[in-house]
């Protein structure tokens, strides 16, 4: 197994696509074990694609891309503006509120960051926001997308680690709202210093708020419907994915009437690439996973960790630090696919709830998308705004600190995370 890891690291550093690197390195294990049939790697890959639970992943990717084209965004932007118009920091507050509302329909932070930046980025620069600050707001706001249900991260983690997706979805609600509060507070403080004024001159009337809420009702209802469907066992997670696709198409066609054949096609084509990238990685990681189980790697790491410490909190902090570190140069979804089979057995030994760990894990893995040198959300936002990475890194520091503080709090107070899942689904 040590040679598998060496091969994997070398291939990775050579710039080989991670999917291939993981499959090829995984095959090294079979070279070392000639007694195993050489067809097993292919069998493992195909079997992975025959897992019904994994079907939720492509379906939610498609649903997210459709939602972006379904006309929900403009309606939610109106709602976000009336809700936050009087807060210090103007458009920055609106942007975070929009991210929060959008995250109830999309599950991908990068898609969310890209859309928000196109929608609000240049408007923010016009109002006098500095480039680095605007880029920081737009990228960190998208951290909410995978946390507030539904989230692709939860689906990946839940299917790879066989953890209830319903509980994971429910676990994201309070931490998501806490992130919103933390980011809004950070903006209020920094905006006052920088002199960024509120967006609206006067408070929105009740009528305006009601109208805007009605326009966004289909988006706000969506996570509620998903959770109810899962709670009452009406649908399995994969079926919920199919339902999400149908929901997006129906509201795009009938409620908002903006979905056209062309945008439908565009959403499907865009999804094919995303699905290929994730599913190929997941399928080939089965080859790698075989060796990990065969050589009892999680047990070895657990034994080693247990000797080091018996404090669950310390283990969580160590794992989060590790994820943040690796996450600076590796995509979050890769981390979830590769590290869940290793870390989940470890934390279970410490008595940590898999849902609690999953939420913290996904949050830490997503934060890696905002930090240099490699961060997908950071790249997208900085590319659209033409903001140098150095400037972004410096000016987005307050946001990094505030989301890290929330993560730390969630590690030490699992009740915040587990309260809603226990309330909806009962204690496990």
């Amino acid at each position, binding site marked *: 197994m040590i040679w598998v890891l060496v091969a994997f690291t070398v*291939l990775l*550093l*050579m*710039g*080989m*696509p991670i*999917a291939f690197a993981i*499959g090829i390195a995984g*095959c090294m294990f079979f070279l070392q074990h000639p007694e195993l049939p*050489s067809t097993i*790697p*292919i069998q493992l*890959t*195909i079997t992975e*694609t*025959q*897992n*019904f639970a994994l*079907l939720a992943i*492509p*379906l939610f*990717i*498609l649903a997210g891309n459709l939602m972006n084209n379904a006309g929900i965004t403009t309606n939610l932007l109106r709602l976000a503006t009336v809700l936050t118009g009087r807060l210090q920091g103007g458009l920055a507050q609106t942007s975070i509120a929009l991210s929060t509302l959008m995250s109830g329909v999309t599950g*991908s*932070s*990068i898609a969310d960051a890209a859309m928000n930046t196109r929608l609000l980025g240049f408007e923010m620069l016009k109002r006098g926001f500095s480039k680095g600050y605007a880029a920081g707001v737009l990228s960190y706001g998208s951290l909410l997308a995978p946390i507030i249900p539904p989230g*692709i*991260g939860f689906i*990946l983690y839940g299917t790879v680690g066989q953890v209830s997706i319903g509980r994971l979805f429910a676990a994201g609600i309070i931490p998501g709202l806490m992130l919103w509060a933390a980011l809004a507070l950070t903006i209020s403080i920094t905006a006052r210093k920088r002199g960024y004024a509120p967006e609206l001159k006067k408070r929105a009337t009740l009528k305006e708020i009601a109208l805007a809420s009605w326009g966004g009702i289909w988006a706000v209802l969506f996570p509620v419907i998903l959770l109810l469907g899962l709670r009452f066992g*009406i649908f399995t997670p*994969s*079926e919920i994915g*199919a*339902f999400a*696709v*149908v929901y997006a198409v129906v509201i795009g066609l009938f409620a908002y009437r903006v979905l056209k054949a062309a945008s439908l*096609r565009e959403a*499907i*084509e865009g*999804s*094919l*690439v*995303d*699905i*290929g*990238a*994730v599913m*190929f*990685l997941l*399928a080939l990681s089965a080859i790698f996973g075989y060796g990990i189980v065969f050589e009892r790697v999680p047990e070895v790491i657990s034994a080693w960790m247990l000797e080091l410490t018996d404090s669950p909190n310390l283990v969580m902090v160590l794992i989060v630090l590790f994820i943040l570190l690796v996450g600076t*140069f590796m*995509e*979050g*979804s*890769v981390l*979830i696919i590769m590290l869940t089979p290793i870390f989940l057995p470890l934390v279970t030994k410490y008595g940590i709830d898999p849902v609690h760990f999953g939420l913290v894990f996904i949050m830490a*893995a997503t934060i890696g998308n905002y930090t240099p040198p*490699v961060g*997908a959300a950071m*790249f997208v936002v900085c590319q659209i705004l033409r903001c140098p990475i150095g400037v972004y890194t410096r000016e987005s520091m307050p946001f990094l600190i505030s989301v890290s503080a929330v993560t730390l709090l969630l590690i030490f107070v699992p009740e915040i995370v587990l309260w809603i899942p226990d309330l909806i689904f009962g204690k496990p």
Partner: protein
Amino acid sequence: MKPFYQKLCAAEAALAGTLLVLMVALIFLGGVARVLGYPLNWSTDFATAFFAWACFLCADIAWRKNSLMAIEFLPARLPAKAQRLLRMVNYAIISAFLLYFMVMGAWLAWTSRVRSFQGIPEISYSWVTASAVVGGFLLLVTTVLKVVDEVKGKRSGPATATDVL
């Protein structure tokens, strides 16, 4: 050669998209039918069979568009010549892997031809296994074309992958 290949790519995308839509329809119908008390046992079976094909076709589409996630920040710091050499080495290793993948996949498809697929006895499991063979072949063609591009002095473009998280 070129127009044929372009048609092949278009057909690949069309097929993958169709499979995706079929998967949605089958699973949605399956779910609704079950809730109504008429469970369809074949809907999920077909959906997972389509899933295998969709996975490999989408993988090839992503590979062609350089959208597979990779860590490129170390190679990017090397001189251009070394970068090119490194890419060629990568393509060579990947080609060898895909060749192995195809051959073993074909062998599996041949030996599993009598094994029936999940709940549908009339359909051979080889239909699923064949997805790995066809997928491996398409990925291999894409890889070889990347090598051809490199030899001609064109770089197939830097990775443009974004994460789904």
